[in-house]
């Protein structure tokens, strides 16, 4: 029985409503994810049924206004949902993150009313799956150098190029794609499955996020109707604003994975005996557990405070980078340490730890790598960019 820690009574910082939300998502994860997720991950398969179920639950775009099919919730509620989903698996949280922060958010924030009404309600119910195309084969950390382009052909835009490492690509109905116009300005286009020349080959043989569908978005002379351009944003700021929302969700999400690892390791160490004593009675193991709980507590406080800032629209991108970087790093460390506490058992699929650990190798890379987030903080405190 999952028993997540709350060492600093951080629950008292949540409203009753947040707690009901958490309970709901946790129960859904208990019923629909925990019993099957290891199997899906072992088979390298995305549990497709979860999209509609997450839609029913309201976990897709919870902060989008009700008018567009969202639940009109605050940022802490979004965070709480992400934590519970990632306790199940980072792949589940990734699917929800992409749909909410990288597809629904830009359509809501940068789209016109017609686009909002056309896509948002269906994305909220999970009837439609979305993907977000920024990264390219040759441009990852430096998306400003992207080469995917479109030309204005009068009646339509002609799009050429390719995106890589795209979550949900193989199963998406629509994709928000960032590409350059003839003057080199980055714009957002909504691609729909079925447009001629638009394909989404799947990426196989991943050792991480095996229960997530990752793939490419390939554009070979795709004619994109002009009404599919997001009118209200120009430049790299567009995708970066989406990433802010998603990174914020990750800062909360990974806490779920960290708690699952800690909770599993604590229980195991109390039950497993060596040298006639529970493994938990040895100082070295206690050190691991004590440090894990300390880091989890710090992560919780950081995420919560960032949430209150976001509710007031005051969180800066650099603050979000710090929380994403810190929380993913410590969660990955917690996964590694807790795996050791389980000894050989830790490498099996009977326990969630190794799966979390492998997933986190993606989480520490996507949405801005660990290094890049450090450079963002460095830039913020010195005023000197060290990227180039």
């Amino acid at each position, binding site marked *: 029985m999952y028993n997540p820690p709350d060492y600093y009574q951080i629950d008292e910082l949540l409203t009753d409503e947040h*707690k009901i939300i958490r309970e709901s998502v946790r129960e859904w994860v208990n019923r629909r994810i925990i019993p099957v997720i290891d199997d899906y991950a072992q088979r390298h398969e995305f549990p497709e049924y979860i999209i509609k179920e997450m839609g029913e639950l*309201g976990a897709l775009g919870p902060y989008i206004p009700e008018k567009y099919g969202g639940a009109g*919730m605050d940022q802490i509620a979004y965070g709480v949902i992400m934590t519970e989903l990632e306790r199940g698996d980072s792949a589940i949280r990734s699917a929800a993150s992409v749909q909410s922060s990288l597809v629904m958010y830009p359509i809501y924030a940068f789209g016109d009313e017609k686009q909002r009404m056309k896509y948002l309600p269906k994305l909220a119910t999970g009837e439609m799956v979305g993907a977000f195309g920024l990264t390219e084969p040759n441009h990852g950390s430096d998306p400003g150098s992207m080469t995917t382009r479109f030309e204005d052909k009068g009646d339509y835009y002609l799009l050429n190029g390719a995106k890589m490492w795209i979550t949900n690509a193989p199963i998406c109905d629509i994709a928000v794609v960032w590409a350059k116009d003839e003057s080199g300005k980055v714009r957002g286009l909504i691609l729909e499955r079925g447009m001629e020349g638009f394909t989404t080959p799947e990426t196989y043989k991943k050792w991480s996020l095996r229960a997530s569908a990752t793939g490419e978005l390939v554009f070979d002379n795709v004619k994109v109707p002009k009404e599919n351009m997001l009118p209200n944003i120009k430049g790299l700021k567009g995708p970066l604003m989406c990433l802010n929302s998603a990174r914020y969700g990750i800062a909360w999400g990974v806490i779920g994975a960290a708690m699952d690892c800690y909770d599993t390791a604590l229980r195991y160490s109390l039950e497993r005996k060596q040298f006639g004593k529970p493994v938990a009675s040895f100082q070295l193991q206690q050190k691991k557990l004590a440090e894990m709980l300390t880091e989890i507590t710090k992560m919780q406080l950081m995420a919560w405070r960032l949430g209150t800032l976001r509710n007031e629209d005051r969180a800066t991108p650099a603050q979000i980078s710090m929380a994403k970087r810190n929380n993913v790093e410590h969660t990955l460390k917690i996964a590694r340490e807790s795996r050791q506490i389980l000894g050989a058992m830790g490498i099996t699929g009977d326990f969630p730890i190794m799966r979390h650990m492998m997933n986190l190798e993606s989480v520490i890379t996507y949405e801005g790598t660990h290094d890049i987030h450090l450079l963002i903080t460095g830039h913020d405190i010195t005023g000197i960019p060290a990227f180039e």
Partner: protein
Amino acid sequence: MKILVLISNVPDTTTKIRFTGDNTAFDTSGVQWIINPWDELALTRAVELKEAGAVEKVVVANVGEKITEPTLRKALAVGADEAIRVDTEPKDSYFVAKQLAQVAKDFDIILAGIEASDYNGSAVGGMLAEILDIASVSAVSGLNIENGELSVNRDIDGGSQVLSINTPVVLIVQKGIAKEPRIPAMRGIMMARKKPLNVVPAVDAEPRTKFVKFELPPPKAACKMVDEDNAKELIRLLHEEAKVI
């Protein structure tokens, strides 16, 4: 057709149980509260019947102090239309039934859980029916309504029974009444904000029982493992230590 679902606010089933006041009261500090599991199933079935169009209104009622309101909000999020809280500490089954009787008069069906997972009294539903002077059916594991006619399933020893019954009625429900408790969706949680939660004052009633003392069960003894080829040792342990043979 209107349904009233009785909701008991109970500690989460994983709660570590402690007592205060020289073992005369349950220590509520740090406890997570939930809807009593049987009540949650009853509520789920009531909401299903409402969605199917067989019922117009689902109301939930609880006897408790302000700390029970999050539990009622959750019931509203699951799909109840209204909540009633009788503002007093629930003292014993009779006291609670008396309090509920004042709010339960105008309903066709009253659903009570077969017991509450805290004190397992199993008495409120029956007492309430008696006070209201209406029929009650116990151990109900299914409820269907067609053209305003109730059909009720009961589990009986070695089989099951189907009853048809007139309203008003108290149905005391157990597992099976709904497949699994409904998980409130985010929209339901937001809608619950706007639904009425009415607080009514308690009526005079004397509890008929009093808590004298609580005791925790003795801690579980450690399990001794005996090798499969050492039956002799097992028999010795059973004979000399456990003294069961």
